[in-house]
């Protein structure tokens, strides 16, 4: 589903964000991207949803070479992805249901279909009763659930999550994380950038650790590589 081959990213100011990053994520996988802030996790996710282009190397998502996409092709790619962030990125002047519906409206979906699907995904994230609430009336965990509902409303094949629990307390973190696991169990690939190592240790999911823009550890390599003699 996702394949990076020798990806480098250098910013115009000379800062190197990614160094020779290569890995492959298969259908149905749940992958943690870990590392300190500035290690390159966010940049890597941005390459996946075509917010940025690699300086060299190739990024493939669902068979498409993302690094070569332009204009509306980027828009079409993003409709097949779900993306959530640490800061939720909800529209403050719209209700939970309207925020979710927004993602469908931009695709030109029919109005009756939009309402039905928006309420279905809000129910899926456990917020059916708060569909008319504005973001400021919701807790952090609830806002992140709205963001997740928005990410899910187009039935994405891949969900990209950039520190989704970074602003949440422990209880809300557990709830959001459980929801991500449920989504993954439904067949959606989840790539989650986090520096919450407790969360990583709780599960057996694949973990890719980054440092200074390079991949320094990939649990998938360890599993397949022969152990020390």
């Amino acid at each position, binding site marked *: 589903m996702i394949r990076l081959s020798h990806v480098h990213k250098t*910013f*115009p*100011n000379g*800062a190197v*964000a990614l160094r020779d990053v290569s890995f492959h994520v298969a259908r149905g996988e749940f992958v943690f991207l870990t590392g300190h802030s*500035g290690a*390159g*996790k*966010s*940049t890597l996710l*941005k390459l996946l*949803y075509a*917010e*940025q*282009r690699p300086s060299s190397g190739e990024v493939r998502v669902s068979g498409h070479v993302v690094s070569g996409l332009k*204009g*509306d092709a980027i*828009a*079409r*790619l*993003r*409709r097949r992805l779900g*993306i959530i962030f640490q800061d939720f*990125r*909800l*529209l403050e*002047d719209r209700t939970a249901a309207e925020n979710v519906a*927004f*993602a469908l*409206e*931009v*695709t030109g979906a029919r109005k009756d279909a939009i309402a039905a699907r928006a309420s279905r995904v809000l129910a899926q994230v456990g917020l059916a009763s708060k569909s008319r609430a504005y973001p400021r009336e919701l807790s952090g965990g609830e806002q992140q659930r709205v963001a997740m509902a*928005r990410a899910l409303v*187009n039935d994405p094949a891949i969900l990209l999550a950039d520190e989704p629990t970074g602003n949440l307390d422990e209880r809300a973190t557990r709830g959001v994380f459980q929801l991500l696991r449920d989504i993954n169990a439904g067949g959606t690939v989840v790539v989650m950038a986090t520096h919450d190592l407790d969360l990583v240790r709780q599960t057996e999911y694949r973990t890719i650790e980054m440092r200074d823009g390079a991949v320094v550890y990939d649990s998938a390599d360890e599993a397949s590589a022969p152990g020390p003699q």
Partner: protein
Amino acid sequence: MRLLFREALLSFRRAPVLSSLSITTIAFSLFTIGLFGLVAINLQRALEGLEERVEIVAFIMRGTPAESIAQASQDIAAFPEVQDVGYVSEEQALARARRELVEFRDAYRDLQVNPLPPSLELRLKPGFRDAAHVGVVAERLRGFSFIEDVRYGREWIQRLDHLRNLTGILGLVIGLVFAAVAMVIIGVTIRLTLLQRAREIHIMRLVGATNWFIRGPFLLEGALKGTLGGLLAVALCYGGFLIFRRSAESFNGLLFFEPWQAAVIVAFGTLMGLGGSLLSVGRHLRHMGGRADRRAS
């Protein structure tokens, strides 16, 4: 489509001050252009009235045979510049002088000999009533052997020419300057709206909105504001026109815009709004895309 309109109208509700400001500035610019247009229209009409009277008088030597005069009249009437030629006999000239020059009525009455020569009076076709053409025609008339003298208001015609040219140039320059100012103002207000909604646009892009989907409401917003500004400008012009007409009753038959002229002003507003927002949105969206790339993670 409904969504497009809703988004465009929402911006009016979200930023009422900014929206009314941009509408007002568009209206004001078009109002100024419109006022100038009104002056130009009325001046042009006044000039046309004056030009109607542009004529050339060719005095004929006494004793010229009537056949020669008749022949010459036909030839002159065939000049491409000439609208009509009239013959004024000595008697007609005297009668006219007695009628029009009341102060000299007694003097003319006592005359034993008619001092006024017969003449040909020419009027030129519209489009030839300028100093250059009048001069050419006068020169050609002097070529007739029996024509003694040719008179025309050379200076007067030249001044008329200057005035008309000046009005045209001034109108064009002022109009262009104001159009440019209005476009910049529309661009700036659209850019302010864009900045105000940068977060929303960012989110739209994240959830897969196409560039035209994002641009659409802004372009529509610009076009709507431009149209409203144009309508307001026409209304203001009409108000100004009424006030001027009331305070200056001596100006009879002042003209207001024809419906199609008013429609051109409104359409001009629409185009300015559309143009300003297109420039601003295009540049700004490219800029936002570029900035995202420069931001380190």
